[in-house]
């Protein structure tokens, strides 16, 4: 196949000519899965927050719906443009990532508190959340550019450091869970790009050592890299009955909620999540609400929708028209898999408590927006792959 036969030189005008495409060309199953999850989110949040704001039973539902609509619009726009253009803007994107997260830290330092968001005229954004998508794009671009040096140790290290910088900024906010998403995304990108197993193994070993240093050795030596509550959350899930009144209280209550749901759930008589025994029941612990209210059946539906997203994502990864596309898709998949597993694992007591939201389900604008950005990028990769294929084969679009 001669790559030079038809140089891909497209301008924005080409991209915006999308309506000319027969049908939208997007992956409908992916869209269906996302919309299904949004629907689940709205129903679940309504049940959980009916009495949280007196007199406004739909307070959270309305807001979540607005976030979803905004997210959907952003996703549609993104699916219409060629994601490959974003590769050129890698410095801008990386600058935005580091800048916004530094800004949050600066504000927090000035107000002497812990803050993870920036107030904008109409809403507040959480840069660490949006940063997930920015990191995926920037890192995918850097790795694509240096793909000839993939076998060099120095390149692997540099790519990793590029991710660690923003990750540390986020952890300092403090948002440990999102920082860990960054690291996982970076590892997955290197993995998909084809970094040697040796480098990957070394990196994983390095992280294992670092984690044990921070959690075990440093506190013993009197150095507290993490706040004590963070350490307790990270280690508490191993022994939930140890301290039910404090840090592990959430896990205990969440387990009771999910377990009480049984096969088909307790419906309106759910008490654990409705009477706020499980804290953060509309954000980080939304899966507990699903588990208690709709039981194993409901939980299975939600998990199946995520499985659908991940399956379609993997498919899009394999059909991407270029390495950048494949890497972006891989990073997005890493983000989804990591968040779903860590969040659900937390509610069922097999992962530590970290503030990682459940994509599309947890209440929150930034999380909703970043997930839709990610899904829009996936659609764009899909659409571009089809355009490329059809240009090559001139066959009809299926």
């Amino acid at each position, binding site marked *: *196949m001669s*790559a*030079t036969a038809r*140089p*891909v*030189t497209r*301008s924005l005008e080409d991209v915006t000519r999308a309506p000319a495409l027969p049908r939208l060309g997007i992956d409908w199953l992916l869209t269906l899965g996302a919309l299904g999850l949004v629907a689940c989110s709205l129903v679940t949040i309504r049940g959980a927050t009916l009495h949280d704001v007196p007199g406004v039973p739909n307070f959270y539902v309305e807001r979540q719906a607005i976030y979803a609509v905004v997210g959907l619009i952003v996703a549609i726009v993104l699916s219409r443009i060629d994601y*490959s253009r974003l*590769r*050129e803007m890698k410095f801008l994107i990386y600058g935005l990532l580091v800048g916004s997260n530094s800004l949050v830290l600066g504000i927090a330092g000035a107000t002497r508190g812990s803050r993870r968001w920036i107030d904008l005229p109409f809403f507040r954004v959480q840069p660490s959340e949006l940063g997930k998508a920015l990191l995926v794009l920037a890192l995918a671009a850097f790795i*694509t550019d240096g793909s000839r040096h993939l076998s060099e140790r120095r390149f692997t290290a540099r790519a990793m450091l590029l991710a660690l910088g923003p990750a540390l900024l986020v952890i300092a906010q403090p948002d440990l869970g999102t920082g860990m998403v960054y690291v996982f995304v970076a590892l*997955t990108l290197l*993995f*998909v790009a*084809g970094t040697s197993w040796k480098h990957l193994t070394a990196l994983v070993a390095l992280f294992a050592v670092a984690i044990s240093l921070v959690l075990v050795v440093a506190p013993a030596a009197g150095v507290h890299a993490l706040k004590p509550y963070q350490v307790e959350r990270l280690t508490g899930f191993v022994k939930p009955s140890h301290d039910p*009144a404090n840090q592990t209280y959430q896990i205990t*209550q969440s*387990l*009771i*909620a*999910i*377990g*009480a*749901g*049984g*096969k088909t759930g307790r419906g309106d008589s759910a*008490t*654990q999540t409705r*009477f*706020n*025994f499980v*804290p953060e029941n509309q954000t980080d612990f939304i899966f507990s609400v699903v*588990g208690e209210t709709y*039981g*194993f059946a409901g*939980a*299975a539906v939600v*998990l199946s929708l*995520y*499985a659908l997203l*991940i*399956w379609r994502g*993997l498919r899009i*990864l*394999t059909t*991407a*028209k*270029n390495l950048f596309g*494949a890497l972006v898709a*891989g990073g997005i*998949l*890493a983000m989804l*898999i990591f968040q779903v*597993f860590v969040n659900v*694992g937390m509610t*069922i*007591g*097999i992962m530590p408590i970290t503030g990682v939201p459940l994509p599309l389900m947890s209440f929150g604008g930034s999380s909703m927006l970043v997930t839709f950005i990610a899904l829009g990028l996936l659609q764009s990769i899909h659409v571009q792959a089809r355009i*490329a294929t059809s240009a*090559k084969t001139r066959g009809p679009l299926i």
Partner: protein
Amino acid sequence: MIQVPEERRPTLSPQLAVRVAVLGGVALALFVIVFFRLWFLQVLSGDRYLAQARNNQERRIVLQAPRGTILDRNGAVLVDNRAAMSIQAVPTRLPAAPARRAELFRRLARLLGASPRRRPCRVGTSTLRLSDLRCTVERQHYQVPFANVTLEPDASRAQYSYLLEHQTQFPGVAAQPSYLRRYPFHGLAAQLFGTVGQVNTAELKDRNFAGVGQGTVVGQSGAEYSYDRYLRGVNGYERISVDSQGNTQGFRGERKPVAGKTLRLSLDLGLQREGQKALDAAQGLAHQNGNPGGGAAFVAMDPRDGEILGMGSSPTFDPNVFAKPISQRRYDALFGQSANYPQVNRAIAGAYPTGSTMKMITATAALESGTITPATVQDDSGSVVIGRIRFQNAGGAANGPVDLRNALRVSSDVYFYQLGAWMNSARPAGGPLQQWARRYGLGQDTGIDIQGEQPGNFPSPAWRARRNEQELRCEKRHRGRPCGISDLRSWSIGDNVNAAVGQGDVLASPLQMADAYSALANGGKLVRPHVGLQVEDGLGKVIQPIDPPARRRLKIAAANRQAILDGLHLAASAPGGTSADVFKGFPKPVYGKTGTAQRPNQADQSWYVCYVPDPVRPIVVAVTVEKGGFGAQAAAPAARLILSQWFHLKKQLVAGSSKTL
């Protein structure tokens, strides 16, 4: 325009395919893990978690059952309840942070008017410096871990409405309706009724409190304890659903409390009041005669079946003081040595030498053992030498030749010393005197239906040997220092001589003497005394009659019994009778015996025990006054007041002049 030719990647490279497969495999594995965990939690262990969830959000508020009322035999209310509002701490819901907890207790101290000063407070084995309120909470939480701690059992309306209006400032503190015991007659029969309180850890193991939940108010002494099963009732509860902050979300149902049953006592309110007044009068008489007086007690009993008609102990106390928590200092002041231990029920727990009231028993023993007949005459010359020791009448008075009846009339000690000498036996169990003392119930609990009896003692050779052995063992432990258990003297005839007149090592309670005289009065039936008459429901229907069977029957020949009764009657009526002047002009026949027991290093114990027959309401009365002097001087006049009340006669306080032991 940027040309990126190398980015065209039309086919999937094998390397990428492997890596994508790995990524997909990892995702699949994670999903499998999550699914299995969910299956385990929701399908396999669902029921267990469901139960936990139900528990989690249900709170039970105890609705205290009102305790049963206590009535006298005629239906007069002796003890009942009044509604009160109590302020309680729920230990598990108090703020955990030390600063917030301290702040809460400062606020509570202000609200309840308690001192915020920190004082040493013993909690279990450690002593902490805590404010009084906190001390109460920590102590009770230590003793009864899961029960609410009552901070103020009787809050004023202002206090609890302030609490309700400012509930957010008082986390873990709640106002709850409750009932408090009310004693309309204050010190009347306080020791007999007993007190109530929250059940403690030791009591939870008591069989009397089987099935009682923590925090329940139970009877802790007296009739309240004995009949707690009936008086207690069954606490109810309200089931409410709460959220994680403990805010009420809804009402789920309730179980209504069941009020306790009514306990009707055999006590007669009028007699009881008169009896306690009579004790005061007796002590007044003791003072007049230069005796210090001290504690006193009386028992009035129906000799036919052991129903206690009145039972009082002086000094007494007002149980209403227990409605509020009481400090150790105040407790000591009210109930300690300086107050002469008013909580002791001297009528059953006072073990005193009986003095001449014993002569009734000695006479029975001598007659029934054939030692003498009623006609046996002895010359009372004022003293008698038995075994190298001279035993004297009080003041050395000589009564001349007397038979049994007259010996009882004048309370001739010489006559009874001689009986003691004749009936002496070196056998371990002793002779007829010991045998009959045992039959009459001395040295044993009477089995009355309230706690705290002292069995007292009647000496025998075996008893003395046992005491000597204890003394020797004790001295050995203390390297030869005398322990004061015994003087290591072996049994001698003098012991029996002293026992025959209720001196020496004889110890008995007024109740035991009343029971013994009842046995003589009713023809030999040793009854089991009881204060409970029946348990009734709210409408007065009898649920449980209380009529314990007699303890045993004593076989006393009719002629012998009559001789003793004659002697007792002469004593209370014939010229020269020890209490004849006390009962001068008393219209009913009185069969009574004075007693004056000498006690080491203190004034004499004054006794009077008597029986008044009546076809409808016979009565036996026993009165004793510590440090009261001669029996006729203090105890007998009190007995006359009590009998006058019982037979609706004019009350006259008549002091006797007989100075006999």
